[in-house]
Every structure is written in C-alpha cells, then in structure tokens.
C-alpha cells in the first residue's frame, strides 16, 4: 500500500480524468489527510444563523476534527470559536445547543469569557502575578476562526488562515442559496426544529457524489418509490395525489427525464442538477403562496424565482441543499467508513404553513434514518464500502459522458443530466486540495 502523507505523486496517481482509485474511499490515512487538507482549506458549512437568534445562543459542531462553537454575541454578530478553554483545553460548551448567558464559563476551573471569546476572569488572578501571563496563549482567550462568512443566513468558515475567499470559493453557485432564500416573501429562512440525524457506515464522498448521480434513482429506489407507484397505478390520472405519492413518484422517472434535467458544474467541486426542471417541478400549486410571492417581488421576478426547480446543489464538500423543497443535508465525516448526515427542514419566513408541512414530510419520507428511500441509498453506499475491498480491480469508473475535451476546456457549464461530470469535478477539487502547495513534499 503506498504511503500518502509525504509527497504528492501518490495522491495525484489516485485520480485519473475518468476514474478514481478505491483508496480514496477506504484508506484511513487518506481520510486523515482529507481532514487536514481538504476540509480545512474548504469553506465548510457550520450552521444557520436562525439557530442562534439571541445573544448567548450557541450551536456546537465538529469540522475536520475541530470542536467549534457558533455563538451570537452581545453585538449581534455570529462568531465561530474553537470550543476549547484557553487554560487546559476543556471543551467550553458541552451541549449541542443552548444559551450560555452573558459569559462562557469553563466547567473545570471557572475561567470565564465574554461572548466575543475574550478572557474575562480567572479565579484568584493573583496566582499569575509576575508569571508573564499576559504573554501566554491563554491570555488571548478563546481562539476565533478568522474566516467566517454569513450568506443569506448560512454560516460558513474556513479553518486554514489562508486560501480562497468565500466569493471565489463558491462563485455563481451561490445562486442556489439565493433561490432558496428568495422563496421566502421576505427573503429569510429559519431552521424549523431538530435535524434528522442519520449515521452512515460509509465514506462521506459516496453520499456527496450520489446527490447529483441521476442514474441511480430508477434502480435503487425502484423498491420504495416503485412500490408507491404500484400502489397508486390503478387510480385515475386526475385523482388528487396524496403529498407522499406526489413526492415519491418522480424518483422513478425514466432515464430521459433525468438526462434532460441537466447538471451544471462550477469550480471547486460544486454543482447542481435540475438546470431545466427536476423531480420537484410538478408539485401541486399553493395559490395563496404564489399570490404572496407576486405581491412581494412582482409577477416577473416571482415567476423567475419559483420557475427554478433545482434538484440538489452540492457546496463541496460539506453542504447539499434542495431549494425547491427547502431541505438541506449537512455532511459530517467521522471516519473513513463513517459519516453523519444531518437533514434540516427550513421555514420560508412569511410563507403559508403548507410550505413547511411539505418540507417536513419530504425530509421525513426521504432523509430520515427511518426512510425507505434512505435505506435504499445507504444499502448501496455500504455495498460499495465493502465491495471495494476486492483486489483485482482497484478503480472506480466515472466515465459516463466523459470526453477528452474536458482536459482542455475544463468541466464548467451545463451538461446532460446523467453525466458523471459532477463527480469528475469533485475529484479535480479533491486532488487540488490534497496536493496544494506540494503538501508535505
């Protein structure tokens, strides 16, 4: 087995233009390097600012093995700090979320910090007289993550102190977040309740790749969506569809449907399917909502916002969103074969309750650990995780609609929807981040 930490040649050799070596999914050393290089240099999704509406509200996460906390300050700003006491390193907040009051207080020796992370008090401070304490790391308090961006309520951070700016990193792909937020008549979103948390015993990239893999639904979801179609098939065509039937049926649309949907590729591994239409395009209209949107934006603009029906947008590597149904799925790698997927339901502020109900139903039926669609997908990811142990063929094929033109012209722009170009784009970004600056050479 090659050794990957030192030098870049071995890592470069893992990614061909149209295939990747199995080690990217099963090698623990590569997972460590992904956390150190790719996940630290990427702009990763932390949370939504609606999760911390008031001063002292916090939400804790782990990104690239770093315990972080997102915290609303007394000045109203949302900060991201290392969740580590400046003294002996204890996590300063142990709960998943909550309100810490006016100060953060360490559970061990009672050091306190103001909500911007500054050290406020240390018990019996006289013990530090004449110790040059003010020159210590501890004196500067909780370490902030310097590079934080809040975009339409979505809070992202880059852990490496240098690298692409937020706007450079995501570019025009941010239009999917815009479209999601614009679907609120007042342009605002709120996280609605707790996330569905689904532990996947598979590598994180299988999930991320799958979001814009449009050749799997009619096969993998034949069991779930196909069963729904069977149960519904004797109904007259004009019979009003229950919401779950309306949500299930498009999953087993044919290849032509998914191909014509289109996929758009951006730099840095980002992409979205559903350029032209998607599985969300034919949901029943909610007339009251359409009227609200027209009143808020004018007829033309409202039509443009609601006319978009993007399928999945991948903000590589940590966030995937579904604007048309207002759910987001957050990717939290834990080990080379372990990934937590957290699915949040979003409320379009100011929109009728029927929208939230539809999102809540969709999230449950498709993304829950109890979801039959989820079972279909995770079975496949796990089957890959185990199947890749096979010797004799060490390559994962990503050749669908590949052309040598991709080498010169790049991948950017719109392609047919069933192309595997989004995965090729993700691995270009992967190899760039994993070998940046001749990493470790």
């Amino acid at each position, binding site marked *: 087995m090659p050794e990957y930490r030192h030098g870049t040649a071995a890592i470069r050799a893992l990614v061909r233009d149209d295939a990747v070596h199995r080690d990217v999914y099963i090698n623990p050393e590569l997972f460590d390097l992904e956390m150190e290089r790719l996940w630290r240099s990427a702009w990763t999704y932390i949370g939504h600012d609606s999760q911390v509406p008031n001063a002292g509200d916090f939400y804790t996460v782990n990104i690239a093995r770093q315990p972080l906390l997102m915290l609303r300050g007394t000045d109203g700003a949302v900060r991201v700090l290392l969740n580590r006491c400046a003294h002996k390193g204890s996590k300063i907040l142990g709960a998943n979320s909550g309100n810490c009051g006016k100060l953060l207080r360490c559970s061990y020796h009672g050091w306190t910090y103001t909500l911007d992370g500054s050290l406020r008090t240390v018990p019996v401070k006289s013990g530090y007289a004449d110790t040059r304490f003010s020159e210590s790391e501890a004196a500067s308090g909780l370490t902030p993550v310097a590079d934080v961006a809040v975009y339409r309520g979505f809070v992202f951070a880059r852990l490496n102190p240098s690298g692409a700016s937020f706007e450079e990193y995501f570019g025009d792909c941010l239009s999917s977040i815009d479209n999601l937020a614009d679907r609120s008549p007042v342009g605002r979103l709120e996280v609605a309740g707790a996330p*569905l948390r689904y532990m996947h015993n598979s590598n994180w990239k299988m999930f991320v790749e799958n979001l814009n893999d449009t050749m799997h639904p009619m096969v993998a979801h034949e069991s779930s969506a196909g069963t729904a179609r069977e*149960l519904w098939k004797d109904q007259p065509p004009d019979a009003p569809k229950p919401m779950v039937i309306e949500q299930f049926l498009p999953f087993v649309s044919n290849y032509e449907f998914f191909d014509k949907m289109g996929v758009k590729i951006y730099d840095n591994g980002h992409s979205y399917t559903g350029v032209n239409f998607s599985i969300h395009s034919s949901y029943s209209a909610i007339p009251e909502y359409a009227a609200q949107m027209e009143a808020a934006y004018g007829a033309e603009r409202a039509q443009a916002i609601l006319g978009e029906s993007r399928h999945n947008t991948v903000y590589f590597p940590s966030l995937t969103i579904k604007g048309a149904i207002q759910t987001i799925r957050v990717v939290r790698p834990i080990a080379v074969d372990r990934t937590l997927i957290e699915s949040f339901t979003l409320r379009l502020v100011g929109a009728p309750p029927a929208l939230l109900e539809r999102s809540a139903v969709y999230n449950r039926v498709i993304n829950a650990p109890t979801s039959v669609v989820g079972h279909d997908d*995770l079975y496949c990811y796990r089957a890959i995780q185990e199947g890749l142990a096979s010797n004799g063929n060490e390559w994962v094929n990503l050749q669908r609609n590949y052309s040598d033109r991709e080498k010169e012209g790049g991948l950017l722009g719109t392609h047919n929807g069933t192309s595997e170009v989004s995965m090729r784009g993700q691995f270009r970004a992967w190899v760039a981040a994993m070998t940046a600056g001749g990493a470790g050479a």
Partner: protein
Amino acid sequence: MGRGDDRGRGGRVIQAVGDDKTLIEFVYHEARLIDEKRFDEWYDLYAEDGRYWMPLMRGQPEGADHTSLFDEDKLLLKIRIERLRNPKSYSQAQPSWCQHILQAPSIERRDAERGIAVLRTPFMYLEYQQDQQEVYAGVAWHHLKRGAESILITLKKIELLNCEAALPSLQLFP
C-alpha cells in the same frame, strides 16, 4: 381504574372498547404480529384514519410543522409493508428481524364518550440484520377504539428514548 369500567363522565353506561385484559392483550398481540412479520394482520389493526407516529423531538407537539421519524397513515404503512416484500428491496436482501420486549401496559385513560382507550407501554426494541443488532427503548402509547368487529388503533405514538440521536437505518417497526 377498575376492570371493565366503561361509564362515561355522566355515569351512563356506553359501549366499552374492551375490558382491561382485552386491551392489554391487544398491545401484546400488536407487537407479536410485527415480530413475526405478519404484516397484513398488523395493517388490519389500524383504523382507516389510523396513524403510526414516532416524533423526532422529546415532547414534540402535535402538528405538521415539525418533521418526525415516522408519521405514517395507512397508505405509507402499506408502502412500507409492500416494499419489504419487493424483491428489488436490496436493503432487505438479507432480511431484518426485530423483537419487542414490553413492560406490562397500563391503561392511562378511557374516554367513554369517544369510545377511546389509551394505553402506555414502556418497551425495548431490538432490530437485527446481518451480524448487527441495534437496541432501542422507549414508551409506546396506543390509542384504541372499538371497530365493527375488533379493536382498532387510531394512533400508536412511539416516544423513542434516543429520538434525537444519530441513528443507523431503522427498517422495521418499533
């Protein structure tokens, strides 16, 4: 509450859902049908407007504005049952099996006017597939009514102990 107490608030005698023993045995029977995969019989235990609900949050209020782990009407239950039998359900190529272990149900409430009885049953639930066995625990609430021929479930609400936790695939029915 005494056995066979079926008096309404006004003291008038109305039709009972069933005596205590019948109600308690119904709850045991429901779990057994799942464990033995007698899903058609299990499905028939649910009233036409019956609901199988597992909230995602502790103390989650009623209402459609919060998502859940399960919130199945009879159509969704039917889809799940038929999917388990579908040969293309690869996630069940190696079938899952489950086992309920129930504490004795208690009869929490009888609403004589609506003809409804509510039972509370702490449980452990094990789900097994291919060398992996998961252990769950919680409290099940059965809302039962008297149907034309038998007792029917109008609501089974399952409060899972670790409802907010990161869970693996849960493929059968706690």
